[in-house]
């Protein structure tokens, strides 16, 4: 099964900046890997249900009881940029 990938589109969805050389390499490798992966289509019949969880469980809850928060300073400690007790990011132009 030949696989075509719009590398630019997928990279944009994944928010990944790729160099020209990386795009070229991925354009070569990904179709190979994916056509191998596409073998999954050969076996799984209609009536086989998908499995998302290896060992099934259900209804796992926590009680609605408060737990410790992080101290504010610890919450902000790793931030690349902070202003006014908030995480500062560059201007948001896309979406709203």
């Amino acid at each position, binding site marked *: 099964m030949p696989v075509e990938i719009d590398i630019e589109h997928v990279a944009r969805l994944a928010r990944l900046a790729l160099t020209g050389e990386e795009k070229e390499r991925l354009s070569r490798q990904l179709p190979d890997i994916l056509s191998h992966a596409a073998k999954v289509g050969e076996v799984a019949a209609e009536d086989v249900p998908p499995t998302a969880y290896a060992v099934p469980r*259900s209804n796992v809850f926590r009680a609605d009881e408060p737990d410790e928060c992080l101290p*504010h300073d610890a919450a902000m400690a790793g931030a690349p940029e902070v202003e006014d*007790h908030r995480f500062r990011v560059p201007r948001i132009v*896309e*979406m*709203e």
Partner: protein
Amino acid sequence: MASNDAHETVIGLECHVELSTATKMFCGCPNEFGAPPNTHVCEVCLGHPGSLPVPNRKAVEYAIRIGLALGCEIAPRSLFHRKNYFYPDMPKNYQISQYDLPLCVGGHLDVEVDGRTRRIGITRVHLEEDTGKTVHPGTTGRIAEAEYALEDYNRAGVPLVEIVSEPDVRSAEEARAYLTELRATLLALGVSDVRMEEGSLRCDANVSVRSRGAAELGTKVEIKNMNSIRSVERALLFEEERQRRALAEGTPLVQETRHWDEDAGRTLPLRSKEYAFDYRYFPEPDIPPLEPDPAWIEEIRASLPELPAERRARFAEAFDLPPAQVRVLAGSTEWADFFEEAVRLGADPRAAANWMTQDLAGLLNQHRVELSGSKVTPAHLADLVRLVGEGTISSAGGKAALEEAFAKGASVEQIVEERGLRQVSDVAALGAIVDEVLAENPGPAEQFRSGKEGVIGFLVGQVMRRSGGAANPKLAQDLLRERLLTGG
């Protein structure tokens, strides 16, 4: 809107409701509005590497409550999915939400418009997590002009339910009725503060206009950023008109998302995206499926309070009240409970309803307080209704007593005593006042005798004044007539 033209408007509403749990959806941070930025956060709701979500049982219970109240089926098995997209207010860059297996499906909400009941279908009710809050510092606050943005994650991970209606709403007015009813229902359920101004109820609308009777929908436009029920109504009126005009002019409509600009009073297209959204939903591997125990669901069902619609029907039936009063009284749990308590304490329902919807509502309005924030109690109302009914105080005296109770909270009996509001019905006492008034007003007395009967009102007024408002006006008039006609 004109209902007999060639087009009809089709509206579907998507409401996000923040649940009033003590803690967030997937971690133990407090779910509390208004804390200093980034103080209600932990490794889970900040999306730190390695942290994991565990669902809050109360939030699931609240979502089931909502589903049951809206007549939904509670799915025997539902899943959390990840909705993947990048946005800086979302710490993991995916939102834990529900997708093709939501918790509640297929309900309805009955709303009243123009005295008719309309049934609006509910497609689904699902659970998800809220995002953080972005502020865009800058002169105008407009996002596109801001130099940078700041993120506060206190709200990130707060439990949300998303309530999606069928495209059954046909006008802005119906949308308002739907939201009003939904809000009242959620309040009655005790699952949310539903404060639109604080964002605990948020609503988006899908609007299209099509040829009347057509099966296919017209071009769908999504409207966002409406911060009150009133702005939803305004935005829908604007958008409906815009689309109708475009159809009339033959201008093609585009499927898009538009932003409601409250100040300008119009919807504007959001910056067009480079590419369509592709959320890449897949089952959230960190959270096992929800398979609520039927016994738990029944327990929740049994604990449901009376809902506003049921209450309205009962009020109309049991108390024989006009629809307008029923709407006000049954419109909120607070008002309905207040009213019912007054009735339980012995108040005549129709009189109590009148006092509440007119005088009390007027006072609250004037002083801009909520019923719960005032000093008036159901006992005040019950005493008031009883004393006026018995004739112990006049209705003017009753108004004065209500104002005093509203301001100070003292008992009605006490106010009546202190302010001497009790009607004087003692013939001897009142007779003395009547005699004084006649002696001091020989002119009007003469006019009466010569046939100008209307002057009796002036004389009653004088008796009332002299008695400090305490005289029983009916008795005063009887005594005046008696004295004047017997020639005394």
